[in-house]
């Protein structure tokens, strides 16, 4: 009698459902499983149901929440009855499955951009920008800066033949480069800027390009945000004649650009900007605030007070409306600016142990974002659970920058002078 009762309480009827495609689609039928299984146990059950030749790690969702403890505890904590048939959705686990060869730089890697699936763009403390077509193979070196590069961005990567990139540096300038992608071969090409953007009075901290590539936006230690034109317009050709920077033997003219607009409002170093839509710019600053700027008017329409100096900000998630930011403490915060009357973050992730240097939303998923920290770790987060999905611990020193690449990889650079790529992350 007793034995039967115990068995009954420890058994749950579950039904595995998924949105994955056939190789990972399990037959929809109710299964009886013990209630004390964890994620690993569930994963092995699904694997046995699927009869794959190579085992696959899965993550499990009940009512839109990821399971991070034993099933029994989870049901108890959420107050879900174990008597009816549970519907468990499974997805492929978000974790890097492969670690690519590190790409060694000459100095600290301070910036990385993985928004183009063909290339990885990195900025380095030696003042050079680099374009990598694949892990370990550097195709172009962008030269010209006299100070460390602090931020890089693809301006226009859609064009087939040439790609435009922007770099920001601590020498108070931004440079725009045109890279000819048709050139192939093992040798790396050195590229000089076609346009130098001067106007900031202090180190430029961050650069970001508008969607169509016609403008770039930069933020600086002089507390301002500047917008610049990227095109080779005639009006500025005249300016270019006056000053020629760099090696004189170079034949091509270097244009000089001036800021189109300046957004003033921050009281301290503006550490990061993002330009998610055509007329909206988000910026974060060491004055403990995140601001949203309306590009046509140049006014700030939102001011989120954080309480900590912020290093990085990104916009994404549900409806591309959530703001994620991190700064001078180990907490990654996510705000929802659509919530009226409050500047309290809706999510706080605090598994890091030092400053957060970078955070990026996944471009297609509403739930996933990554964060990089000075403790040398990159963490992948899902909004549906408070624990990190996975921790990439390959860097040996501070991680200074990180980005998604091709939707399934994480590229990151740090104070160990390496660009590291962790690939095989399946985000459906």
């Amino acid at each position, binding site marked *: 009698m007793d034995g039967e009762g115990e068995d009954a309480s420890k058994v749950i009827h579950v039904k595995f459902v998924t949105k994955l495609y056939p190789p990972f689609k399990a037959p929809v039928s109710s299964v009886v499983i013990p209630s004390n299984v964890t994620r690993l146990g569930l994963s092995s059950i699904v694997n046995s149901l699927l009869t794959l030749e190579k085992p696959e790690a899965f993550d499990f969702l009940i009512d839109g929440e990821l399971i991070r403890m034993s099933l029994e505890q989870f049901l108890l904590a959420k107050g879900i009855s174990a008597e009816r048939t549970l519907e468990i959705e499974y997805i492929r686990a978000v974790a890097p499955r492969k670690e690519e060869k590190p790409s060694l730089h000459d100095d600290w890697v301070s910036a990385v951009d993985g928004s183009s699936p063909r290339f990885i763009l990195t900025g380095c403390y030696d003042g050079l920008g680099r374009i990598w077509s694949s892990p370990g193979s550097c195709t172009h070196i962008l030269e010209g800066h006299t100070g460390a590069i602090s931020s890089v961005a693809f301006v226009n990567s859609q064009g087939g033949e040439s790609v435009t990139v922007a770099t920001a540096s601590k020498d108070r300038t931004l440079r725009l480069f045109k890279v000819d992608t048709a050139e192939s071969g093992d040798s790396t090409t050195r590229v000089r800027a076609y346009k130098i953007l001067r106007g900031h009075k202090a180190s430029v901290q961050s650069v970001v390009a508008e969607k169509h590539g016609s403008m770039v936006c930069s933020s600086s230690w002089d507390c301002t945000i500047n917008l610049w034109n990227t095109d080779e317009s005639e009006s500025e050709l005249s300016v270019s004649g006056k000053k020629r920077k760099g090696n004189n033997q170079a034949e091509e003219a270097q244009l000089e650009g001036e800021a189109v607009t300046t957004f003033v409002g921050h009281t301290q170093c503006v550490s990061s900007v993002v330009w998610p839509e055509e007329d909206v710019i988000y910026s974060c600053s060491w004055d403990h605030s995140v601001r949203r700027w309306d590009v046509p008017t140049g006014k700030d329409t939102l001011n989120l007070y954080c309480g900590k100096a912020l290093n990085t900000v990104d916009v994404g998630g549900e409806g591309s409306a959530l703001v994620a930011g991190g700064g001078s*403490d180990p907490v990654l915060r996510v705000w929802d600016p659509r919530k009226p009357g409050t500047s309290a973050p809706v999510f706080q992730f605090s598994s890091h142990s030092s400053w957060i240097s970078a955070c990026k939303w996944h471009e297609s998923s509403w739930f996933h974002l990554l964060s990089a920290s000075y403790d040398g770790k990159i963490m992948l987060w899902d909004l549906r659970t408070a624990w990190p999905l996975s921790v990439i611990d390959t860097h040996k020193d501070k991680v200074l920058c990180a980005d998604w690449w091709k939707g399934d990889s994480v590229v990151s650079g740090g104070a160990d002078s390496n660009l590291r790529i962790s690939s095989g992350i399946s985000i459906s």
Partner: protein
Amino acid sequence: MTKKSEGANEDQVKEPKRKVVPVKSQKEAKEVKSSEEEEDLLLDSGTDSDYDGDSLSGSLNSDDFDSEDDDEVVDSENGEEEDDEGSEQREVAEESDSSEDEVAPRNTVGDVPLEWYKDEKHIGYDITGKKITKKEKQDKLDSFLATMDDSKNWRKVYDEYNDEEVELTKEESKLIRRMLKGEAPHADFDPYAPYVDWFKWDDAIHPLSSAPEPKRRFIPSKWEVKKVVKLVRAIRKGLIKFDKPEEEPNVYLLWGDDSASDQKSKHLTYIPPPKLKLPGHEESYNPSLEYIPSEEEKASYELMYEEDRPNFIPKRFTSLRSIPAYENALKESFDRCLDLYLCPRVRKKRINIDPESLKPKLPSRKDLRPYPNSCYLEYKGHTGPVTSISTELSGQWIASGSTDGSVRIWEVETGRCLKVWQFDEAVKCVAWNPLPDFPILAVAMGVDLFFLNTELGTDEEQQRIEELLRLDNLPELDEAAAAIAKWLPDEKYRGIKIRHFKNLSYIDWHPRGDYLSAVMPGGETRGVVIHQLLAHSTKRLPIKMRGLPVCTLFHPNHRGIFIIATKKYVRVYNLHKNGEPIKKLETGLREISSMAIHPGGDNLVVGSKEGKMCWFDMDLSSKPYKILKNHPKDITNVGFHRSYPLFASCSEDSTAYVFHGKVYSDLNENPLIVPLEILRGHSSKGGVLDCKFHPRQPWLFTAGGDSVIKLYCH
């Protein structure tokens, strides 16, 4: 004069008497005349006249009594004369006043029964103590014949006490006779004498009170009636209850704490004994088996300490008969005696004070956020203890100097070392120019002071700095200054080197960024100089230095005010008025090590080598407003935040303390000082040598003897 007036008064008083008594007026008038004639004898005559007056009035009023008195005096004189002669006269003498006390009887035995002397030959003793012998008894026949012969025999009475015969006089017999008749004993007494009315009725026309008796004296009181009615009503309503014998409750709390109720009331210092636990089943002589400990349990009891061992181990006996005597009886009575012997005879009053309540009321740390509390960034690269750090105004860079001879510039946000200058000597002090567009670093080491170009400014700024730091021709200094310092170009780093005559210990920029003060403790009276960078000149202070200078400060708001800390005192001078001393602060410290001024300029914090820190409110007093004793070892540096109400101290005990130090704009309110955080993290080797706040964030940089710089964030 007073006598005279008295006399005059008496004269006035006497005059009406004269009228009343015309009989004796002649004599009176004479006396008055004499008193008027002789002024000297006024008092005497006055008193005399007074006495006379009295006696006169007396004689006037009671003539009868006077005569009686005279008779009596004569009688008593007679009595006294006769007393010695014989007892018979004495009896007569007692006629007027029959008290026996006046004439002592012959016999002195007192009031004793006379039959005591019946068989004796004497009847008693006289006043000299001699026996008074009895008279010989006469023959009855003789005595009868004698009585028959004596015609006066009927008047003789035998006095048994004195043993003699007393013969009554005629007056006495008459007196007895009158008394028997019921008349007054004295023949002279006239019971029907005319009535003399002493009250003078002639001038009183009204009676003493002519008011008729009021009616209320004859009717019962209305108020009493009301009161009685009230009482009657109260009794009827039951408001007044007459005493009834209190019924004692016949139930009482059998198991209650009887010690508390009645015992306490009897004795002030009654200490109730602890309640005994009620016996349970295990105390039974034959408890159930589950109470009986097993052998293992008993063995485990043996292994316990005696204090921890259970004092009762249940045992089982088959019958009451088999229960042995109580084995611990003797021991327990001994313990009881010990308890009594050791019991304190005095009840100690223990005061229960919550130690928390003795602490001063301070606001919670949570309310005083933000303040630095945790270290997230470290700046590593130096190979020796970092002696000094300095922050750039924007907060993007910090500079540090170390004993390994290197000066480094670090990027704050990443911890990257941007620039290194290597020197041969240990760096003593670094100071960043406070102007935002003038990124020059002043570095003190040994006897040299360097101005270094950090190359962090814009191109125009860079150009200006390069021009300034190019020392084409050596500046001419006046004689006094030339003996102290010499300006030289520094080829290695394209800066300026100023060579001093003694070792430097401290440098400080003026807030305007042009002047720089340098302190040489070995320089004694010439220990402080001021360099002017733009003019390439050096000036000696027009101040007579007392004691060895330790550090200096320029006032943040008032241009000419200069503060110098010597080993024991802090002095404030006005440089605009030729170094006129303004104030002297008495620290009471043994040796000052560092000093920092609040950005408001009125409050000063001084750190000492004994670990004490003094907060001075310079407007308030020259004594410290508060002394904070936190560090067990020397304080190496103190610092204020530029905008947040924070200050910090760092010490050789490798900790840094962060305090909340709020200065109110209201002058009546004293500064609020709250200790916030102890920042640890530096290794114990070498301690923390310098601390500086980030200029814009509530962050603290600490430079450690372990050659690491740490950044503590909020």
